[in-house]
């Protein structure tokens, strides 16, 4: 049933010759983005591809880079996003209504990839609908560095992991506060790029005062993997981002706050998010 034990790839220090495939490409680019001097933790804003439309979502991604983002998590809108709260869900619905397609979002990926590493976030059915191998090949061709599939737990991941490895993409798994230690260890051992650590038991969305919970989950995640640990879900303010870094997170993912800003400033979404990203980046200065 379970996948063969993953090769352990020490983060940022690939011993040459251990990689038969070109996976080093995506993994190395991600590793470099996590290891920047002057940064307490890498900043990874979430971008809903195609929201409010494809052109403007590309502009928002550029603004993330201008504001000081280290990587971008690029979401593919989906009809039934089971891991997402109301803000991202509504943005996805809007993106689909305004005609966003997978290929359109891959176009956004291609436009952003020269500026910063892109990690695509997409629900499993979209991957399977294209065909796992065709999907990862298209993703590689669009310049992406990694892939996050929030409804593809360890048990279902082997096929996609193999295709990602073959395409030079890092398949980034998730762990949650509900994951027992033993399970976290099995997930952490197969992680590529970084370990997406969900800060709360819940869906994406802004939350007040959850900083107390950061320490225990980050400590547990770091004890169970060799790759950087990025904390996400519910982080919205520079204070929360800093608290995540204080808790030991190697990276911070900010989603709903930025998607909400883009929704509230339809006239100039790029301008609105640039300021927020800059504020978050300042909060993460060493």
């Amino acid at each position: 049933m379970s996948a063969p034990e993953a090769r352990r790839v020490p983060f940022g220090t690939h011993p040459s010759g251990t990689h038969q495939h070109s996976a080093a490409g995506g993994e190395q680019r991600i590793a470099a983005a996590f290891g920047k001097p002057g940064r307490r933790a890498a900043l990874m804003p979430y971008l809903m591809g195609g929201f409010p439309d494809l052109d403007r979502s590309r502009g928002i991604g550029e603004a993330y880079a201008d504001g000081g983002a280290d990587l971008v998590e690029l979401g593919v809108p989906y009809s039934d996003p089971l891991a997402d709260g109301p803000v991202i869900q509504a943005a996805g619905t809007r993106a689909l209504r305004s005609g966003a397609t997978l290929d359109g979002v891959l176009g956004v990926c291609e436009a952003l990839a020269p500026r910063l590493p892109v990690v695509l976030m997409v629900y499993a059915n979209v991957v399977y609908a294209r065909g796992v191998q065709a999907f990862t090949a298209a993703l590689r061709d669009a310049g992406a560095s990694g892939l996050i599939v929030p409804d593809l737990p360890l048990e279902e991941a082997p096929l996609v992991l193999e295709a990602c490895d073959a395409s030079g993409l890092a398949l980034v798994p998730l762990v949650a506060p509900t994951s027992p230690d033993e399970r976290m260890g099995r997930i952490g051992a197969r992680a590529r790029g970084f370990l997406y650590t969900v800060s709360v038991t819940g869906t994406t969305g802004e939350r007040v005062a959850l900083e107390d919970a950061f320490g225990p989950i980050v400590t547990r995640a770091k004890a169970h993997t060799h790759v950087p640990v990025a904390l996400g879900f519910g982080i919205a303010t520079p204070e929360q981002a800093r608290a995540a870094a204080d808790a030991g997170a190697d990276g911070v993912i900010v989603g709903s706050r930025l998607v909400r800003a883009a929704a509230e400033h339809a006239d100039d979404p790029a301008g609105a998010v640039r300021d927020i990203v800059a504020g978050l980046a300042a909060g993460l200065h060493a």
Partner: protein
Amino acid sequence: MSAIEHRFGPYGGQYVPETLMPALAELELAWAGALADPAWTAELAELLRDFAGRPSTLYRARRLSDHAGRPIFLKREDLNHTGSHKINNALGQALLARRMGKTRIIAETGAGQHGVATATACALLGLECIVYMGVEDTRRQMPNVQRMELLGARVSSVEAGSGTLKDATSEAIRDWVTNVGDTHYIIGSVVGPAPYPALVRELQRVIGDEARAQLLEREGRLPDRVVACVGGGSNAMGIFAAFVDDPDVQLIGVEAAGEGILTGRHGAPLTAGNRAGILHGSMSAIMQDADGQIVEAHSISAGLDYPGAGPEHAWLRDSGRATYVAVSDADALRAFALVTRLEGLLPALETAHAFHHVLEEPSESTMDLLCLSGRGDKDLGQVLDKLGAEEL
């Protein structure tokens, strides 16, 4: 007892956020423990008997048999407390929730029958109950919304998407992701991530086990065909389960053709036979576009208005053991009127689809067993709306 199935051929699995994976493991463990606990199985048996009214009767439909020219036996799940087969599953899962120490129950509902059954089980066991229901369904199944509220449940109406069963299910799963610590999700059909499809089948197989024994005792033979409607597929799996190992018994699932398969406005993923995909945590027959976006189903009957079907059905179809057909809105309405007039039975619109297939499609069958999955009181408003009074 062997471990509960996670896969049916290539179908099934657990495509859910990591947050839920430990809860699915806990559920599987609790289920195995409950089955091995004589006190637990005795309590379920007692509730099914004294509270729900089991065994349900097997009725040889007099005038419908004449109409079809062959004996038609009806497994009367409409006579259960709360009016459908859904109570079998709701009682079992509510007892399981209590065993796991969960105090909060969530459920999704389309026609409202599963919601009512769950609200009923929760009232009985003193559990908090929240039912997610698409806004469109709250409108067309209003009596059931009122029943759930009277039973003490909170009905949360879901605006997303088409405001039907798919969207209610997605919302229930999101609630579970958020509240998984104290909450059990009582899913209403043989869908969702493992272990749900097999677990719900086991709780519904009482339908088939009873019917098989009743028919053997009465007629000394098995039917040529076993026919049931398929939304997610729980009443069908429940009755099929007892006959899968009888190779001479044909198993037929009847889906909703809505306005016609070719229009795309239907709820018949098994019949349409398009590319398989992932919906609500399992790989199965689903309705999707080229990019893998789930498309909206359509059916006059809220309980069949769902763009997926249980993974075991997809496998029974592929392996050739069961056959799936689809019946249109218009034919289901006509069958509803016919059964009411001819037999004095008022079937749920869901079941009316199965009735149409048995009563109006030519067959060599010499005896049919049909699962009368529920009663149609909830559908009166809608049926009267659609059928002119003169047609009735």
